[in-house]
């Protein structure tokens, strides 16, 4: 992997690997405040990777991705708090519920294309949120906190729990990253890359556009659900507004991916890192942050549609995370 010709690529990959190592030793290095931010970062990274797969490759520009995050959160609460299933199993089941509900959502949304599809995903997400608000066992419109036994199952003291949730988030993000990488390197993935570059042209050489879109939709749903479950463990409560937050789980994610670079694996990572760096260093967080990121997204699109990573990539001989089928194997 490091056999590559270009020193810049080697340096870039070294940064990437160093970042991964840093994440792997973080609990022994950082304080709980940082661990908590990193947990949030990993969750957001999963969302970014998924939105990028759907919108950047399969041309399913969804603005309803928060639906599956919320479904994961509610399903997790149902399994862990109501059915009293152990948290790790409840998290996995939450991912499965998201996958199961992706089927009817897809049946509705995939009748539409482009603008209408985007609106359709939003409407479907709102519907799921409305339903969640009607579930009295889940606290109705105001939501409910995770009961203490669920938390105790993760660790006796809050400090231990922080670390456990961090590991869960890290495992999820690593799985999301590496499996998406493998997907892109596969037979299906080369078709997805062709779709990204020219959809009609891809169809003309035999890429089944409909199946590819469906696969990506079903691929992303469980990951979003799992991320929702982990976000719930961090926030310690569910509520329709927070668990189905379009701002946190869709709008910010879109900004991050657009700024970082749509249609690459590196872009979402870069965009999510930038998001947290800005957030940490801009004291007056809130509406301004949203507006700043929005303005930045538009500026980036105007300069380079493939984002900051697109700008950097021009100066590199190859991808940092190689998805190509040409030249040396990696």
């Amino acid at each position, binding site marked *: 992997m490091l056999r590559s010709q270009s020193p810049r690529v080697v340096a870039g990959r070294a940064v990437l690997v160093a970042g991964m190592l840093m994440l792997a030793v973080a609990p022994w290095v950082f304080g709980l405040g940082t661990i908590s931010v990193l947990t949030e970062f990993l969750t957001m990274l999963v969302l970014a990777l998924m939105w990028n797969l759907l919108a950047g490759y399969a041309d399913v520009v969804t603005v309803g991705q928060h639906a599956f995050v919320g479904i994961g959160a509610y399903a997790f609460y149902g399994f862990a708090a109501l059915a009293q299933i152990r948290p790790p199993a409840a998290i996995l089941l939450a991912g499965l519920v998201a996958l199961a509900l992706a089927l009817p959502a897809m049946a509705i949304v995939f009748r539409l294309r482009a603008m209408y599809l985007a609106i359709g995903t939003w409407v479907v997400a709102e519907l799921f949120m409305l339903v969640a608000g009607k579930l009295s066992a889940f606290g109705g419109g105001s939501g409910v906190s995770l009961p203490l036994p669920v938390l105790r199952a993760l660790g006796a003291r809050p400090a231990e729990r922080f670390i456990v949730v961090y590991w869960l988030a890290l495992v999820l993000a690593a799985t999301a990253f590496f499996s998406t990488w493998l997907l892109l390197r*596969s*037979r299906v993935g*080369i*078709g997805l*890359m*062709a779709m*990204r*570059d*020219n959809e*009609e*042209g*891809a*169809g*003309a*050489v*035999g*890429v*089944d*556009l*409909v199946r590819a879109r469906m696969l990506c939709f079903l691929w992303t749903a469980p990951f979003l659900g799992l991320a929702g479950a982990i976000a719930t463990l961090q926030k310690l409560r569910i509520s329709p507004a927070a668990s189905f937050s379009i701002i946190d789980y869709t709008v910010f994610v879109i900004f991050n991916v657009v700024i970082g670079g749509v*249609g690459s694996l590196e872009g979402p990572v870069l965009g999510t890192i930038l998001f947290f760096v800005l957030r940490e260093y801009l004291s007056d967080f809130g509406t301004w942050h949203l507006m700043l990121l929005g303005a930045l997204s538009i500026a980036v699109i105007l300069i380079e549609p493939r984002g900051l990573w697109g700008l950097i990539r021009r100066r590199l001989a190859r991808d940092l995370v190689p998805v*190509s*089928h*040409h*030249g040396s194997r990696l």
Partner: protein
Amino acid sequence: MLLEVAGLSRSFGRLRVIEDLSLSVQPGEVLGIIGPNGAGKSTLFNLIAGVLPPTAGTIRLSGRDITGLPPWDRCRLGIGRTYQVPRPFAHMSVFENVLVAAVHGSRASLRQGRRRAEAVLALAGLAAQQARTAGALTLLDLKRLELCKALAVAPKLLLLDEIAGGLTEPECATLIGIVRRAQTPDMAVVWIEHVVQTLRRIATRLAVLHDGGVLAEGAPDAVLANSRVQDVYLGTEGR
């Protein structure tokens, strides 16, 4: 019969581009299609390849009605096509462009696809460029890449839309050689070109498209000698 088009029509709003057109193609032949600008030649390809739905008519491939099938299914059933305005996968290498076609168009594994892509690139003389990013190719190489992608899907019916435009005489001869070598006995080629001289050298049959239908078809020399063809096409276009 490999391809049977019957009663095909297509309008864009009030513009009737193809009207009640019928056409058949047999395995092994090379059907040249000529016609003035805007005659509907590329539209005909889009209808056959499934990019556009027809307003009326049917399209059969090897006896099977494919009129309602999406482009990728038609491709997998054996229709390979080039675009007049190339549609490269700009951020992928030349090799990967052809690999996608080999893998998805002929339902091959990545390994089989690699071999197929290598063979096609070698045949088309594009092997030296295979590591380049497709977006960086010149127009001539992009047209050759279009041909490679169409060949990589292992087509029974190869649709070529003006791939010789802008080529010099020797380049034309090379291109004709490539198509000849790529053509298997059970494969048919339908080739749209404005340069009649190119088609004359390879076409076994010629069809002239005009006013939404086939104005004349038959042996190339007979068609070109047809006085109506000379009036409406060769006369006005001065070719």
